């Protein structure tokens, strides 16, 4: 399907996400993952191709920068902007969302504290993820990889960092209601280890401010 990528060996669809299809395939003898941003019938063609192309370039650029500052992300091996497609290193799952259901409470906390450290380091390095959910974190035997930077950005704004935390908190709350406080608390512990208590308090204030800005929040 791609002009540059050649005909991949046994490409296998492993995940159909909201905007992309993820294929497992061979890349010069190594197992690799290809991410294709697929055309959306619900967007007019002109809008659709602009969005897919710019997001693909943006995402790969961010992943490259993230890697430079020591954030664990899959290595990019090939980029094809014309087809809104790129190939990256294969990282074994499961997603943190899946893993959190099956691991004991102590390990659960350890994972989330580690995630807090990784996200804080990313923020300190001037990047925000933009779609930070526990589905976008892979846990390879406890080593956490961030994936899906499609909505990320270069930003040092407290606002953008706050949005990351807000989205993560909301994702945790919506699928892990029973131990949501525990895991978000552990996340904040890790986050605070990197940025310090004062910065953590600042960002939490920001998160509350963003929430309050939402419609119909009743002010206590």
């Amino acid at each position, binding site marked *: 399907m791609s002009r540059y990528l050649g005909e991949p060996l046994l490409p296998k669809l492993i995940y*159909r*996400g*909201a*905007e992309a299809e993820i294929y497992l395939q061979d890349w010069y003898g190594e197992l690799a993952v290809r991410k294709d941003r697929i055309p*959306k*019938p*619900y*967007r*007019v063609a*002109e*809008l659709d191709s*602009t*969005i897919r192309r710019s997001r693909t370039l943006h995402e790969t650029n961010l992943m490259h920068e993230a890697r430079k500052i020591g954030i664990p992300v899959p290595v990019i091996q090939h980029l094809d902007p014309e087809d809104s497609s790129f190939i990256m290193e294969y990282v074994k799952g499961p997603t943190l969302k899946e893993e959190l259901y099956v691991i004991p409470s102590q390990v659960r906390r350890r994972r989330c504290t580690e995630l807090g450290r990784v996200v804080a380091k990313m923020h300190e390095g001037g990047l925000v993820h*933009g*779609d*930070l*959910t526990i*589905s976008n974190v892979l846990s390879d035997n406890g080593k956490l990889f961030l994936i899906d930077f499609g*909505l990320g950005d270069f930003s040092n704004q407290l606002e953008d960092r706050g*949005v990351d935390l807000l*989205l993560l908190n*909301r*994702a945790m*709350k*919506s*699928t892990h*209601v*029973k131990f949501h406080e525990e895991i978000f608390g552990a996340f904040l512990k890790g986050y605070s280890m990197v940025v310090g208590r004062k910065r953590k308090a600042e960002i939490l204030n920001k998160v509350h401010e963003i929430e309050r*800005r*939402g*419609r*119909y*929040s*009743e*002010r206590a």
Partner: protein
Amino acid sequence: MYCLGIESTAHTFGASVVTEEGKILSDVRDVYASKPGTGIHPREAADHHSEVAAKVISNALVEAEVSGGQLDGVAVALGPGLGPCLRVGATVARAIASCFRKPLVPVNHAIGHIEIGSLTTGALDPLVVLVSGGHTAILAFSGGKWRVFGETEDITLGNLYDMFAREINLPSPAGPQIEMLATKSANFVPLPYVVKGNDVSYSGLLTASVAKLRSGVSLADVCYSMQEVSCSMLTEAVERSLAYTRKKEVLLTGGVAANRVLQTKLAEMVVVHEAVPRVVPQPYTGDCGAQIAWTGMLALRAGETAEIADTRVRPRWRLEDVKIPWRTAAA
């Protein structure tokens, strides 16, 4: 069992009687029309509601062939909405409940949109897309409450259309007129497309659309492009939530659910994810008494009644604060 429902959160004063089985015996409404080029004036809307309240409610009872004494409860939307409007419905509901000595059932208007959508489409455990003048939110039921997966970070889809309508001197709600104007163009003008995670942001789109219009782009082109961008953005946000939750049904409800472009875009997306699109039928897209009566019936059966002293209006009542004891689906 019979439950009377009273709706007065914004432009509509509505009353309806429903049965325990979910049969809607009557659904009467009278809608305040704003002057062209202006939005809803809260006091004027409240005045309108006061004038029509008695007639609407008595018509609802007569049409249902149910007397005040036969009612098992009086449900009223206490929020979210415009304070002066809410107070009219609340006052009338308290009066009827105390006169006939019936339990008063507070209902969250947004939950009403969800429940009337579920009742009329048969949706069991849907991902809900609630679009109206007051809401643009993507919701799933979990842990006894509706959880917000995504929503607008600023103005709602209904606001976007209504605020744009003011610029071109149309009365609100203006969704249908904008949809009609949009059909006259297929010329796409680039406008800001802002999706953040599962959230959307429409304020920049509003500013840019107005600017395009002032710079001389035709009204039809702007309406078409604004509708394309706004509906595509929401469809993308819903798609993200759907991929995340893996729900098997998507329920579109609320006033803007009547927009056919939005319906089409959502349906196209939803079937790809092997889910079933469901759209609240036309008579129940907009605000109505039936959504309050039916939600009130569900709450009444679950014992969720309130003393008159606890029925103060709640103009900013968020739907995820409402306990939903009558739903059991989903982990």
